[in-house]
């Protein structure tokens, strides 16, 4: 009797722990495995490579987490990356920073369109951003004339490949974005509005909160972050490649968000968890590749983890 009671009480705790800390546990397990069995894993060069590779996904995923918290989703992030990549070489003549600024503005514009479609035209986020996903990839190809453009700008190259005190600039950027998002969500008034709107749209409106402005803002933030990721990828490759940059990144970003413990139903968000979700997915891919397993194995493992993450949340929300 006492046993069954204890078990009943323990069950939600286990689920709660998995939801809050499952991603950390998984990362710890994978790290331990790699440290033990993967040669050359614990080298600075390898760790740096992994982090640099995951940077664009992590930045996009943070924006995605904010959109998901608003009970929305942004499928257009990959195409937004393509737009920012396509815009970059067009304005490089004015200098790197003006070009980067314009690329980020382009991302903000895409976000504003998404946000307006959702907030004012009341379209479902998945449909609205599916539309911009298709439209923006096309627009990016038109802007770039369908070509890959190589760029030999030293500052841009540094942005993609240099490090400060041994930490790559892109990784620093990830840390800054994560920190800013965490503060905005957990400390600033914006986060309260965001979670209120995502948690109960009608109640937020009746409390006099600016629901529409909040929605537009969150998509603009997602657009700017996607554009940032586009600039980073372009800088690292030394080439603007609007056909392929950011392709299918929306799926990786959504995965990172969900695995990080943010439910797709809105009203709740885990910013650091999202970063961890992105790291976990990267770690899985790296582990599989370094053990010469086929890429398909990585995908299946990732799929299993996504399903497990969603299952844990489902159990939690019922309890």
């Amino acid at each position, binding site marked *: 009797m006492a046993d069954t009671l204890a078990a009943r009480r323990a069950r939600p705790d286990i689920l709660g722990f998995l939801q809050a800390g499952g991603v950390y546990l998984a990362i710890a397990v994978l790290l331990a495995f790699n440290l033990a069995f993967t040669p050359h894993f614990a080298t600075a060069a390898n760790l740096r490579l992994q982090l640099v590779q995951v940077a664009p996904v992590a930045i996009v995923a943070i924006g995605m987490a904010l959109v998901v918290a608003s009970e929305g989703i942004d499928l257009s992030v990959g195409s937004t990356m393509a737009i920012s990549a396509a815009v970059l070489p067009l304005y490089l003549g004015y200098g790197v920073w003006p070009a980067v600024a314009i690329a980020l503005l382009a991302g903000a514009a895409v976000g504003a369109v998404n946000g307006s479609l959702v907030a004012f035209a009341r379209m479902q986020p998945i449909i609205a951003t599916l539309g911009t996903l298709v439209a923006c990839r096309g627009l990016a190809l038109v802007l770039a004339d369908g070509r890959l453009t190589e760029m030999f700008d030293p500052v841009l190259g540094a942005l993609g490949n240099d490090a400060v005190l041994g930490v790559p600039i892109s990784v620093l950027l990830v840390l800054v974005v994560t920190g800013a998002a965490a503060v905005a969500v957990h*400390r*600033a*008034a*914006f986060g*309260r*509005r965001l*979670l*209120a709107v995502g*948690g*109960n749209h*009608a*109640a*937020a*409106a*009746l*409390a*006099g*909160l*600016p629901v529409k402005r909040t929605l537009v803002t969150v998509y603009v933030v997602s657009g700017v972050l996607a554009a940032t990721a586009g600039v980073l990828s372009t800088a690292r490759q030394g080439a603007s490649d609007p056909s392929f940059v950011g392709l299918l990144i929306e799926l990786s970003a959504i995965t990172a968000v969900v695995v990080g413990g943010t439910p797709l139903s809105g*009203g*709740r968000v885990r910013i650091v968890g999202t970063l961890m979700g992105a790291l976990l997915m990267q770690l899985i891919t790296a582990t599989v590749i370094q053990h010469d397993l086929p890429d398909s194995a990585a995908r299946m493992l990732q799929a299993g983890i996504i399903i497990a993450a969603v299952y844990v949340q489902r159990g939690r929300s019922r309890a």
Partner: protein
Amino acid sequence: MTTPAIDVRSVSKHFAGVRALTGVCLDLRPGEVHALVGENGAGKSTLIKLVTGVYRPDGGEVRYLGEPVAFAHPRDAQAAGISTIYQEVNLVPMRSVAGNLYLGREPTNRLGLIDFRRMRRDARTILAGYGITVDVRRRLGELGLGVQQMIAVARALSTDARVVVMDEPTSSLEPREVDLLLDVVALLRRRQVAVLYVTHKLDEVFRICDRVTVLRDGRLVHTGPVAGTTRLRLVATMLGRDTDQIRRHGTTTFSDPAVSDQRGRTTGIPEATGTPVLRADGLTRRPVLDGVSLDVHAGEVVGLAGLLGSGRTETAKAVFGADRLDAGAISVDGARARRWNPAAAIRGGIGMVPEDRKAEGIIGDLSVRDNIVLAALPRLTTAGFVSRRRQDEIVDTFVRRLRVKVSSPGQRVRELSGGNQQKVLLARMLCLSPRVLILDEPTRGIDVGAKAEIQSLISELAALGLGVLLISSELEEVVEGAGRVLVLRDGAVVGMLRGDDVSEDHIMRVIAQASGDGRPPRAPAAPRGGL
């Protein structure tokens, strides 16, 4: 006597231990229109769903044409000849009128393809039988709701229905469309179809129905010919009040002095105290609100009474700026507001606690703290950051003052009881120091203790100068809590009672009065196209 088309024999149904129906009987005869009425939670929907095969009874049985039946699925009931017309039109708006009439049973030609010409011709013939002439090739969604509703009826009938269940079929229709629909109901009766007509509108009961059954709290409380009852009796039965012995004072805990003081004031000085804090003029939102005007003075509790569907909640939302209006104006302190929405209302010192606590009130995943300060966020924010100190002060003050039972202010509001959630919502508005508070069903679905606390709080606040618009489906609450009562029917104010006139009996009389001096004039149901 003919065999009833439907014979419900003392059915019971409960959900998760809650009894929805207890031993309810109903017989529905061919060629009669049988009204089913009752307030929220009376069990009307459950009863309909038992008849139409959505649910199966836990006890008792349902007989159809004399035979006991147990439909496994609404489809089976429909195939057997029981059709249901729902409140919302249940057709495909993107398809043509003809396509909808023949949805799932389209006539085919020799090649097995749809014979569109025949389908259109037959559709025209069928609709003409109901006095509807529309282009049957038009998309259903382009037509007015009334015509859509008629087409739903026509579809139900062309499947040779013996029984038609109509669930508030006129709730979203314009008056002209209502006339058209009622004509069709009359036609059904002539064709010996049995009609179960669920409605909140007494006018319709007396206009079209032969017999009426009243449910209350899952029990049958009355069944009999419409001709043998009066509107007042019907209202009293629905609300569970005995017209002869209505208690002037019952179980509420509104403080007597405050109310009698107000009554004295309002009767003594006809126009209370100068400029009202809040004034609404001619609020219109078709088809639910039709020119509602009201005002609330400082320190006054104005009650808003009326049956379900009379426009109580719609009025509350319109006054608070939550719904777009077709016409009407709001004035605060005598100055007409230009842009009016919840944010503007809150800035103007108006607060509202909505009727639907879960859907429109609480944000379940957020903490009690975040829920309380939600509407106050703009005032607590400097340079984008919320002042934690001021926030915690507010939360502490109101959790203590309203005695909200929480383990900590960080507890998720989802985990609280209904009464405590309601207190959180009150705190959300009270911390804005409003001058007028709109309370839509402030004590619905909460425990007795919390109910009493909230009722005395309302009196207390009014004594301190707060104006309150108190909406309640419990007459007792309105009568004992309010100094002045407006009575709504069909989205319009049909009476205002003040002073000693405020009594349950009186309110029911006003609700029961027919619009105008009896039956409304019937508009000739001329055949016409889409609206």
